[in-house]
């Protein structure tokens, strides 16, 4: 059989198996073996690929960034950084109409700079910010939308697991991708904050009652605002060190984790209970990401071997449509996939096929990465199966229904699509900072 037909059938079968609930890593690995077998006609070549990929494909210094940044995020959360950041942002913005909403966005943005995953932010802020907004009589759905919308900052602002995976798949520098993420991350933060402010100006009912806030005491306010100094220092150290070329991404992860551990000690959270929690959590994220990475490397070898990606990019380049249409089509695919699977799996399934096409069309690899990541993250909010929404539901319990969270998210999805359009229209937002490195 023609290798390209084999590859197309394999890709189709991967999607069928994933829909049927086969573990995503298993579906990718097993079908890549079958695909390579069908292309080469040699079963042993295909099977031996399993053994070598499981061992040598992940034996790379740069892959240590994943467990190290996971550790940093977990330690920083355990140090109580989330609560402190939210309190500080509340002091700064809480007096405005809709201020707690803006404070949630800002606290999420800062917290995102020490954590690499979105859904964790959604769960934490559901517990911290939602009760506070409800106490001030914010509209319920509005408060859910704020938390859901701002949670996706977790993966947009570096460090981000998605940027690491994108870097691995496309052989781009992870350090540069991290720095590139700052621009789009700030655009999304600004869009969400302005959007919340506008919504409250247009319809003041959403923003609750300011009268319930206690009078401001300058001393305590200052104390609260300065409490998260450690976290801010840590972010400056990690991102600054990366940007200045003083650290490799792996070193930045290790230094960040060590700093976060120090914060735990300073905040008196360095106890047995917290340490056991952190240790149990590392495996959950690290091993699940690595299984996907191993499987994805086999899948991308299969695709390369078949020549599908090369063929597809030639075909796309010859299409009589403007190249941007193809990128927009990719975005539609990301949003659709976001309705069924998690963000990392989307990246693994699509990038080996889409990346060569985007490069062939002359797009910048880093810009394309940022566009993909923002689009995939928006998919986490869209019904029927947005992951962030489900994480919030499980964290809020009976206090909210899925429908309420989804309807609350709709205005935020529109804001995020606007931010995505900005990121697409102004490539220097993504490419200028890394070009200075």
């Amino acid at each position: 059989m023609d290798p390209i037909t084999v590859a197309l059938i394999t890709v189709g079968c991967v999607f069928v198996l994933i829909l049927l609930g086969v573990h995503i890593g298993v579906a990718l690995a097993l079908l890549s073996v079958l695909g390579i077998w069908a292309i080469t006609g040699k079963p042993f070549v295909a099977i031996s690929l399993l053994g070598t990929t499981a061992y040598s494909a992940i034996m790379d210094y740069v892959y240590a960034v994943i467990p190290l940044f996971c550790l940093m995020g977990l330690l920083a959360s355990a140090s109580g950084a989330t609560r402190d950041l939210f309190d500080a942002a509340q002091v700064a913005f809480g007096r405005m109409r809709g201020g707690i909403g803006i404070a949630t966005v800002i606290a999420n943005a800062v917290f995102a700079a020490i954590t690499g995953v979105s859904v964790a932010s959604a769960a934490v802020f559901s517990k911290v910010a939602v009760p506070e907004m409800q106490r001030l009589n914010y509209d319920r759905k509005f408060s859910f939308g704020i938390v859901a919308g701002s949670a996706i900052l977790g993966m947009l602002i570096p460090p981000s697991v998605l940027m690491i995976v994108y870097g691995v798949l496309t052989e781009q520098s992870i350090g540069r991708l991290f720095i590139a993420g700052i621009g789009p991350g700030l655009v999304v933060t600004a869009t969400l904050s302005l959007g919340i402010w506008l919504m409250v100006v247009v319809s003041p009912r959403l923003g609750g009652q300011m009268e319930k806030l206690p009078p401001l005491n300058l001393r305590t306010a200052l104390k609260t605002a300065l409490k998260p100094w450690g976290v801010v220092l840590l972010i400056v150290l990690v991102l600054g060190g990366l940007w200045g070329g003083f650290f490799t991404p792996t070193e930045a992860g290790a230094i960040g984790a060590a700093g976060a551990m120090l914060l735990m000690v300073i905040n008196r959270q360095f106890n047995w209970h917290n340490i056991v929690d952190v240790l149990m959590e590392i495996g959950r994220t690290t091993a699940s990401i690595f299984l996907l990475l191993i499987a994805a490397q086999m899948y991308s070898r299969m695709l390369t071997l078949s020549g599908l990606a090369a063929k597809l990019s030639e075909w796309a380049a010859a299409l009589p449509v403007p190249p941007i249409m193809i990128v927009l089509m990719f975005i539609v695919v990301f949003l659709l996939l976001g309705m069924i699977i998690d963000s990392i799996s989307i990246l693994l399934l699509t990038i080996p096929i889409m990346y060569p096409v985007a490069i062939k069309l002359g797009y910048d690899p880093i810009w394309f990465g940022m566009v993909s990541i923002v689009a995939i993250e928006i998919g986490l909010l869209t019904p029927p199966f947005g992951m962030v929404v489900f994480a919030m539901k499980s964290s809020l319990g009976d206090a909210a229904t899925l429908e309420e969270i989804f309807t609350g998210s709709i205005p935020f999805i529109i804001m995020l699509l606007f931010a995505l359009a900005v990121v697409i229209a102004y490539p220097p937002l993504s490419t200028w900072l890394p070009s200075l490195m």
Partner: protein
Amino acid sequence: MNMPIRLLHGLMALLNIIGAIWVVLIMLLIAVDVAGRAFFNAPLFGVPEIVKISVVGLVWCQMAHTLRIGAHLRSTILVERLPAGARTVIEFISFLLGAITFALIVYSGWDNMLESWRIGEYEGEEPVRVPTYPIRSLVLLGAALTAVQFALMAVDRLRARKIVETKAPF
């Protein structure tokens, strides 16, 4: 639950914790290396080699336990909406596919592992030589345990026991 299964699950949990402590040790090693370079102009030798092979080791330590607590990623949107009988059959087959995949990893890595023990394979140049044969064995142990865990889940599915599920953290 009977004794051998409990022992296996205990081994998975133990390896998981070892993997987590391994991450912390790597963190300390790199932090000391960076501090040594920055303040004393004296970096450690062999850190990249150690980190490199550690990644492989610690990941495979955590693989089986992660499956057991239901944290490997899958999409259950469709199966959740199927009638119970169809769901049992589909999940039984999908867990079986998992067991086969990981068993194949053990099978295909076996000869390389034996060979690496025989020749005393290592990574890096003199004076820093990090032996890799223990890591190769650890990979196969992790893969074997994961295959066993998949098989246990397939059996549980037939006996209609509850399978642990967690949502993706991404």
